[in-house]
């Protein structure tokens, strides 16, 4: 008896989003990064097209993040300088692009001024020639001042700016339209709000073909499965013709992983769990591996071993 053909016939395609602009396109990047364009679920290359592999964005912040020393040491002393950290991410860790989080702008951290943040953006753009993702600090009020200045400092570089939420999308749309950047739309592990934010962006006159969706990110063991199923559901809807869900997906794996005890507490706190030196990057890499399977297009990673492991996974699976 013949083996039945179980291939799914999808009717639609995930949007293709390119980040970064080279000289001819009005920027100064040495290369651009393109994600999306899938016509089937992750890695099912027998069923459809998967024209662009998932990419790794190296985590960088203006102020060193509050991570355990074991993790910071593995990255190196460069973590204290956003420019040097950015360079190391690209030159040594071989990340595809960079993801800059302006943690220092947070009023509860350093309350760095918008001008200071914009300076960091400019310095990084000068020091490396890969495309850049720029995030605010997460405080909406502060970000409303920080992101416009950073956006302007990177004008024409076709950055990916994060993030647009129901509360602030008008500002993000305005700056991204003016300075020619792409948008990260954010929802708090909620597919319905995710769709609604995309509707709002569309209503505000922003083309959803220039949007990457961020369903926040849950670390392994902390609601990972919720985000995983949202990714699956969003991707399936996108492939079935729901244009509002046909966006590439981004995950902040490093940012979330080094907040949970399994990736931040060493053996003295968690006896029998093994050394944090090894467990931390494993937790990060496993989380990234899971999101890859779910359909993530951009993974933000930090630990060199997690980056290396994930690069290998992407190559093997693609």
């Amino acid at each position: 008896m013949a083996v039945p053909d179980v291939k799914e016939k999808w009717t639609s395609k995930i949007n293709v989003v390119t980040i970064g602009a080279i000289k001819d396109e009005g920027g100064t990047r040495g290369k651009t990064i393109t994600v999306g364009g899938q016509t089937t679920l992750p890695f099912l290359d027998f069923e459809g097209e998967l024209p662009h592999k998932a990419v790794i964005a190296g985590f960088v912040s203006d102020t060193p993040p509050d991570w355990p020393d074991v993790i910071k040491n593995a990255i190196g002393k460069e973590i204290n300088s956003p420019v040097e950290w950015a360079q190391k991410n690209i030159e040594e860790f071989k990340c595809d692009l960079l993801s800059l989080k302006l943690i220092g702008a947070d009023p509860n951290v350093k309350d760095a001024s918008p001008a200071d943040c914009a300076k960091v953006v400019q310095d990084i753009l000068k020091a490396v020639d890969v495309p850049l993702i720029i995030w605010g600090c997460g405080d909406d009020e502060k970000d409303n001042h920080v992101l416009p200045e950073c956006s302007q400092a990177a004008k024409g570089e076709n950055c990916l700016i994060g993030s647009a939420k129901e509360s602030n999308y008008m500002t993000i749309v305005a700056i991204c339209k003016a300075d020619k950047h792409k948008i990260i739309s954010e929802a708090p592990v909620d597919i319905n709000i995710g769709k609604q934010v995309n509707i709002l962006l569309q209503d505000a006159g922003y083309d959803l073909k220039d949007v990457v969706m961020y369903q926040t990110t849950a670390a392994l063991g902390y609601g990972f499965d919720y985000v995983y199923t949202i990714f699956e559901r969003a991707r399936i809807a996108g492939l079935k013709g729901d244009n509002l869900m046909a966006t590439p997906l981004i995950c902040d794996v490093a940012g979330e992983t080094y907040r949970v005890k399994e990736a931040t507490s060493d053996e003295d706190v968690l006896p029998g769990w093994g050394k944090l030196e090894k467990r931390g990057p494993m937790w990060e890499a496993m989380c990234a591996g899971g999101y890859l399977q779910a359909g993530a297009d951009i993974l933000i990673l930090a630990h060199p071993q997690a980056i290396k492991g994930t690069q290998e996974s992407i190559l093997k699976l693609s």
Partner: protein
Amino acid sequence: MIFIGERINAGFQDIKEAIQNKDPEPIKKWARIQTDARATYLDVNLGTASNKPEDLCWMIETVQEEVDTPISIDNNRPNMLTEAMKVCKKPPLVNSTTAVEEKMNSLFPIVAEHNASIIGLVMDESGSPATADRRVENAAKLFEKAIENGLSPDQLFIDPIIMPLNCMQEQCQEILNAVSQFKLFSEPPVHIVCGLSNISSGAKYKKLINRTFMAMLITQGLDAAILDVTDTEMVDTILTAELIMNKTIYADGYVEAFRKS
């Protein structure tokens, strides 16, 4: 939902006159309006205005000059269909065959040759069935014949034949029962379509009856309809019923989003 726009039909006076006078404008106008209202297919029906294949081809070509929405050829004469198929730029949906052997044998090969789709009415030699079982039996005949001719299940749209509520009230439940079984034939399943307005034929509250029955049919698996795509109350009911059935993802602005995208 697969929306099949019903308006380019010689049953409407403006279209009838357009065909008689070879005036492309009313046809183009409705092609545009229905496409803007997100029709998936545009039904093209010559009605009694003409029986010449070239007139049907002219209608299709006129539509295609204005929009690239696929055509639903509302004609079941093989000679007309053969000619009309040739001018369709995208695989059309043929409306329709019955489960009568001779009819199926004359139409399915033409459909298969053009990789088109076809609506199959669950009518047989003795006319419209009165029970759910008979409807399912005839649907199975259509399904078998489609597969035999090399069509995939999703190229077949089964129509359960809707009867008027005001004189055949007991039929409604038979129809709903039958529809729920059509989806069980295969995976992927066949599409299920209907000419909805029959339900309210001769009734006073036509639109209310149409909408209510539509929502009920969607719960049983109906996923296509020949309808007035500009009837926003109907379209909104469909969008909502599909959300309730978890066929689409909810967002607060789902109604506006449908109209804009």
